[in-house]
């Protein structure tokens, strides 16, 4: 069964693409790309928080339109936006379908289907709120991800007073995902090149399990080497970082708009 190796190779390559190559939309000079990463992160968190707190359908729609408009103003390709909307909340869409029927949400019937089953207004509103909330949360995070460099985002975390040790480990993790991804890909490709004919499911399982075990041993060796290399270069356990972000007037404007968004949220209640 070489297909499982192919599936793993495919997933690892796409993972490698995601971590190594930044999105093409980052290089564009759009609205979100020009914003300070700290402001973008605060804006995204504020939108998620407001979407979680407020239950008003109109307000959720307002937040969703803001997210979409800022993505359009950042020159994100419509296909990419559609993919975000379609794939990520797909599970939520699947979950929300039964909500519209009278046997799950009783209420005023809009469309009568069969027997005592109908589509209810309450069910539709419930499903719409559930879906809109997920859509707002997903798009606000994805808008930041598609328009920010990971190292800038990592630096933006400092603004939230996250201890430098934690940030250092996070950036180390991100970097070594690349290294271990390449190692895992090499192992999968080596196994695929040695595999002739059909392989039983048991042998395929054992193969993937052995690669996972081998990867763990490699990580243990690598972590020791990384630590020794850092110590030999003068690392004592103390973390120093450089922060070169500058606030611009557009960042202040977005900050003020956020206050407006929060205000509208509480006034709409």
């Amino acid at each position, binding site marked *: 069964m070489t297909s499982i190796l192919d599936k793993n190779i495919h997933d690892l390559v796409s*993972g490698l693409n995601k971590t190594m190559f930044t999105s093409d939309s980052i290089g564009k000079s759009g609205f979100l790309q020009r914003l300070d990463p700290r402001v973008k992160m605060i804006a995204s968190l504020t939108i998620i*928080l407001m979407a979680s707190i407020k239950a008003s359908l109109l307000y959720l729609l307002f937040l969703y339109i803001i997210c979409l408009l800022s993505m359009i103003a950042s020159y994100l390709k419509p296909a990419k936006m559609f993919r975000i909307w379609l794939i990520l909340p797909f599970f939520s869409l699947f979950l929300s379908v039964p909500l519209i029927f009278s046997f799950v949400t009783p209420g005023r019937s809009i469309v009568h289907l069969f027997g005592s089953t109908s589509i209810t207004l309450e069910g539709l509103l419930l499903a719409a709120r559930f879906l809109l909330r997920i859509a707002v949360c997903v798009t606000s995070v994805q808008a930041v991800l598609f328009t920010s460099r990971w190292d800038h985002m990592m630096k933006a975390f400092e603004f939230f007073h996250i201890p430098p040790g934690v940030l250092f480990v996070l*950036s180390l993790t991100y970097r070594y995902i690349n*290294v271990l991804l390449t190692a*895992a890909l090499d192992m999968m490709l080596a196994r695929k090149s040695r595999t002739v004919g059909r392989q039983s499911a048991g042998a395929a399982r054992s193969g*993937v*399990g052995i*690669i996972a075990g081998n990867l763990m041993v490699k990580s243990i060796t690598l972590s020791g080497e990384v630590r020794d290399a*850092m110590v030999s270069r003068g690392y004592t356990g103390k973390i120093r970082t450089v922060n070169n972000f500058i606030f611009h007037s557009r960042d202040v404007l977005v900050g003020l708009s956020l206050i407006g968004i929060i205000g509208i949220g509480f006034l709409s209640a």
Partner: protein
Amino acid sequence: MHIPDGYLSPQTEALMAAATAPFLVKASRQLEKKYNKLTLPLVGVFGAFSFLIMMFNLPLPGGTTGHAVGTVITALVLGPWLSMVSVTLALVIQAFFFGDGGILALGANIFNMAVVMSIVGYGLFLLLKKITQRESLEPFLAAVSGYIAINVAAFCAGVELGLQPLLFHSSNGHALYFPYPLAISVPAMMIGHLALAGLAEGFITFFAYSWIQRRFPKLLHQQTAANLPISWKPIVLGIAVLIVIAPIGLLAHGTAWGEWGRAELFRRGLSYIPQGFDRWNSIWSAPLSGYNLPLLHNSAAGYIVSALSGVILILAIVAISIFVSRRIRKKRTSTTST
């Protein structure tokens, strides 16, 4: 099992973050004690490993494939604390840089996949190892621990989701967040994990463990031989927390499925009560029936007292069994030596 944002209420998310924090603080202190302050590079690389292991596809019976979380094999080789921190790092990177799993829901996701899986997987493995005491069985025990740990984590996720419509609904009774109650959310989570994800976790733990055991046995002995000393403080604290939150059961309406009494069966439309049922049903009347003590005039207090009595009773039974088994063993050794 990655819960996205919008599924849980902010209150639940805050509570889950608060429940996770002490474990992570304890884990980082343990790591500092074990590896000193040069521990950071180690943790970073293992975070990357945990991220990667979640990407592996495994073929499952029936022609499907499944992803494992990989927490249990990490806990068995690196220890539960290092596993907790490395899986947490992987989850943070997934949420912030790949949009997988919610940002506000991170506390719940870390609790389920990093804390619960590490503790249950590692603890269960040590317990099974102690009972069987056979090295050749260890990969199988690791697989069982992996299978059970991921299912316990899925159960936790199911409960967190299923509590939402019970606790957070609008004035007309409609759910504000995840809309399905416990009766749907728990089975829905469990079926997928019992049938697919659990097998994936079991397989990856089995094969990775047996390979490391064959090729690098020293790595396993470093961790599992130098077992962390059992500290009673967190166990007692955990049981105390569980006793205090016992009245949460009052939130659920009706009786658990299949646990109906005489009156409930009639209410459900059964026209007669089988003779055998009636005879055996009345043979024993429990002293704390329905976890309620009428003397207290408070059902929540009744639940707490019932939970406390239950724990004391179980501890007493365990203590008596240990005492009896020790006496029997002592007797046997004295007869064989003579």
